[in-house]
Each structure stands twice: as C-alpha cells, then as structure tokens.
C-alpha cells in the first residue's frame, strides 16, 4: 500500500490535481444527492411545462425539454449513468490489462514478445466500429456496452503494467520470494500486482475519460444508453435536435460533459507527471 499512500501525499501538493479531484467529487456527490432533494424525476413528462427556459424561480433551474421533463434532474441522472458506466467499464479494462501485462512482463522472453505483438496488432484496429456493429447485431444493452468498452480499453493498461512489472521483477523481494519457492502465479498475484497499485490508479484516471468518451459517442449516435434512461451523450444528442428552439437543451449537458472530461484529463495528466515525470503524450 506504500505506493498508493506516497501517491496521495504527492498528489496533495499539486494544485491542479487537488482542484480537479475536488470538482469531480463534488459533481459526483451532487448527482447522487440531487434526486433525493429535487421533486422532479428525470423521466416524468409534464405537458403543461414544455420547453421552459432556465430560470432561477419557478422550480426548473435548467429549464425543461420537449416533453416537459426537468433538465436538471435529467442532467444529474445523465452524469450518474455516464460516471457509473465509465467506472465499471474501466474496472473491466483494468482487470484484463493488469493480468495480461503482469503475466507478459513477468514471464518475459518469447511469450512476452508474442503477447505484446498481439497488443500492437490490436492497437491498429478501429474498435469503435466493431462496437457499433455489436450494438446493431445484438441490441443495445447496458451490459454489452460495459463489456465492449472494457474489452477495448485494456491495451494501454497492459503496456504500462508490463513495463512496470519488468522493472519490479528485478527487485530483491521478488528474488527472495522465488528463492523460498513461491510459485509464479503467487509471485504475480501477491508480490507484483500490489506494487502496481500506484501506476494502475494513475492510468485508471486516464482510462475513465476514454470510457466516458466511448459511451457518450455511442449514446450520441443512438446506439448506447436507451430511453427512459439517459446519459450525457444521449442528452447532447437530444439537444442537437432542439437547439434552434431551446439552446439550453444542448448547452447544459454539453458543458457538463466537457467539464467532467476536462477534470479527468487534468487529474490524470497531473498524476502521471508525479509518477513518471518524463512520460509525455
């Protein structure tokens, strides 16, 4: 755990990291607490109050959409779904990436060469089109989105983890473990993976915006999250069709999405600079 705690201590000293992390936490908290306080639901239509512009008074702070649904409640719900999908999908990619990278890095040699050749090959493929194909062929389910995004995003993680593992396995404690007869699997799971935690956390903060991007891209095209549920991408897509009459339906979810992505990218960048000062784009 020392890798993680030293990361946290370093991170506190960086202003950009602190500000972004705080903002993300606040946004997540509001999206979770909001529905408990608000008396509008994100799905209930109200035909007497359609297309209301945002006002400070009157109860609809962000206005309403073409069915009279409260945009504040919808945006909060969208943030919740978007963040949830992104975090779970990133955990899926993290699982695959860490396992793949640690095995390749620890075993090394020809196995490593072969496994990394596969990763290189996969890098060149335009996965997003396969995801579109998958959604068209199998219908649009949340589970499928999670698996599809997770299955794509593990490549970066595998590379990073492999590099880290190669440097870890030359350390004395790994030799010591091997000496007393710990199995290869035991070394990878009990001695290598825990020490990867710091790096993994950093790259997870960079994987989450990737996942957000992919989910909202799919939802924007109508292939992702389906009504009555909504996500920020789906809200932006709705807003596009209404922008001439009701610009707030586009601007508010678009700004929310942009702010969240910006925060994650700044956070990830800042954290990466702390772990790996020479690492560039």
């Amino acid at each position: 755990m020392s890798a993680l705690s030293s990361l946290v201590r370093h991170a506190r000293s960086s202003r950009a990291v602190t500000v972004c992390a705080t903002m993300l936490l606040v946004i997540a908290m509001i999206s979770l607490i909001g529905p408990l306080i608000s008396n509008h639901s994100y799905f209930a239509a109200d035909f007497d109050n359609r297309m209301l512009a945002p006002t400070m008074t009157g109860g609809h702070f962000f206005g309403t959409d073409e069915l009279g649904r409260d945009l504040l409640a919808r945006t909060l719900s969208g943030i919740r779904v978007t963040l949830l999908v992104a975090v779970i999908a990133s955990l899926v990619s993290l699982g695959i990436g860490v396992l793949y990278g640690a095995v390749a890095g620890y075993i090394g040699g020809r196995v490593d060469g072969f496994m990394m050749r596969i990763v290189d090959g996969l890098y060149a493929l335009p996965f997003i089109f396969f995801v579109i194909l998958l959604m068209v062929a199998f219908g649009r389910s949340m589970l499928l989105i999670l698996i599809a995004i997770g299955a794509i995003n593990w490549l970066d993680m595998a590379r990073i983890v492999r590099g880290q593992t190669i440097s870890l396995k030359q350390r004395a404690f790994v030799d010591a473990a091997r000496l007393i007869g710990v199995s290869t699997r035991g070394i990878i799971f009990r001695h290598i993976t825990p020490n990867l935690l710091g790096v993994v956390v950093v790259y997870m903060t960079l994987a989450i915006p990737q996942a957000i991007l992919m989910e909202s891209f799919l939802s924007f095209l109508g292939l992702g999250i389906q009504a009555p549920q909504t996500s920020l991408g789906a809200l932006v897509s709705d807003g596009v069709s209404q922008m001439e009459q009701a610009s707030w339906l586009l601007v508010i979810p678009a700004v929310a999405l942009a702010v969240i992505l910006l925060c994650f990218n700044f956070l990830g960048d800042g954290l990466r600079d702390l772990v790996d000062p020479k690492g560039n784009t």
Partner: protein
Amino acid sequence: MLRYAFARILGAIPTLLLVIAIAFLMVHAAPGGPFDSERVLPPDIKENIERAYHLDETLPQQFYRYIKGVVRGDLGPSYRYRDFSVSELIAGAIPVTMRIGALAILLALIVGISAGLIAALRRNTVLDRLVTGIAMIGISVPVFVFAPLMVLVFAVTLKWLPASYTGSDGADRLLLPVIALAMPQIAFIARLTRASLIDVMNSDYVRTAKAQGLKTLSIVRYHAFRPAMLPLISYLGPAFAAVLTGSVVVEHVFGVPGVGRFLITASANRDYTLVLGITVFYAAMVVFLNLVVDLLYAFVDPRVRTR
C-alpha cells in the same frame, strides 16, 4: 527498404482477414434473421429470399463467398436499399468523406505544428500556457460536443455559416465540418510537437550548435525540426483513425452525405450487410493508412528497417 515494405504489406493481410472474420461472425451470430418481421412470410417465399441472399448456405460457405467478394471489391447487396449494392453505396459516399477528412488532417498539421513550435520555443511564457491550455480543452471536448456547439454559435445564432452541408453550394459549407473534425487533432499534434521539440532541443548536438553560436531559429530550422517531427509521423496512424471515427459524428451533425451517415442510417435500419460493409471498409482504410504511415516512417528513419 523494399524487403521491409514487402514484409509489412504481407503482414497486413492476416490482420485484414481477422478483421473481416470478426465483423462477419458478429453479424452472423446476431439473434434473428435480417428478414424476420412481425408479418410472417409464407415458408416458400422466405426460402426464396434466403436463397437469393445465400442465407441457406453454411457459415463457412457464406464466409468464403464474402471474402471472394471483398477481394473483387464486392461487399454484397444491401438489405434495405434494394436497388443498390453495398459497394455502390459506399463508393458514391467516399469522395465527400475523403475531402472533409483530408482537409481536416491538413488543417490539423498546419495549425497543430505551428502552435506546438511556438509553445516549445516560448516555453513557460503566457503564450505557451495558452497553447497547452487550449490543447487540453481540444483533447477533452469530444467532436460530438464541439460540432453542435459550433453550429449553435456560428450558424443558428450568428448566421455566418450554413448549418447543414446540403444547405449551401459554396466552399463555406465545408468550413464548420472541417474545423470540428480537425479540432482534437490540432490539440494532439500541438502537444506532441511541443513535447518533441523540447526533447530535441535538450539533446547534445543542439547544445553543440548553441555553443557554436547559432541562432535559435536556424537551429530549429536546420537541426531540430526534422528529428522533432518523427513522433508526429507515428501519430498520423491514430490521427487517421480518429478522423474516420469523428467523420461519423460530423457527417451526422452537419448532414453530410458521406460514408459515416450511411453507417448511422444503416444501424437504425438494421441493414446488416451495409453496416458490415462499412465496418470492413473503415477497418481496411485504417489498416491501409497505418501501413502507409509505417512505410513512411521506415523511409524517413532507416533504423526501423533493420529491426
């Protein structure tokens, strides 16, 4: 060089086959047939339709037939546009997609490299912070957020430019789609150029040049610029892929009649063969462009060839 090129081209073939196989299997593993509908067809009519589209054959037979078609540039018939083949539909849409994509890449290279060079040479000044800050926004804000906001500002509110591609005949209809598509690439290229030039300017031979009294600008021009462009060449592959992906969004938002728009309508119609055809086409494009980039890199940097 020739040997390297030959090996790389041969290496691309299995990748392409694998891509086609995955896409083909995905579509064929889909539950329900393409002609299932609420209205139940009489069995002999259904049989006729299935025979016409070779759906009565076994999966390997169908795959073999498909691959044979792909080699000849035939991606099969569209299930929804009855009078057109998938290849005809894609071929008709390619020019406009290509034009917008190529212009976006060009714009991204010109603006991105210039901004990156300025930021690197004026490091830690206000100008540098401005470039890196805008680049961060460009990287974070996705095309599908940026494009509609541009329409809202420049077309709906200010009325300077047409909101849709088909709403005008002039070159002005290209402006918004190209800028929207280029924006993230400008940002990536600016960051990459900046980082790369800073790296090169710290190298020993640049220090020697400085010690000899050369001006910064001539060091950049004669010694640092070309090596600093090397990472950019390898980024071109991902850039092409990102522009292809982005073109789907941009064509959707601006109503450009390109390949990406067909992908959207075909997904909504569940036109399996058209979606499959476009996926194979895009994948082939990406594999091909990556090949070109690799060969370009090997041409520029001889160290790659010998590996």
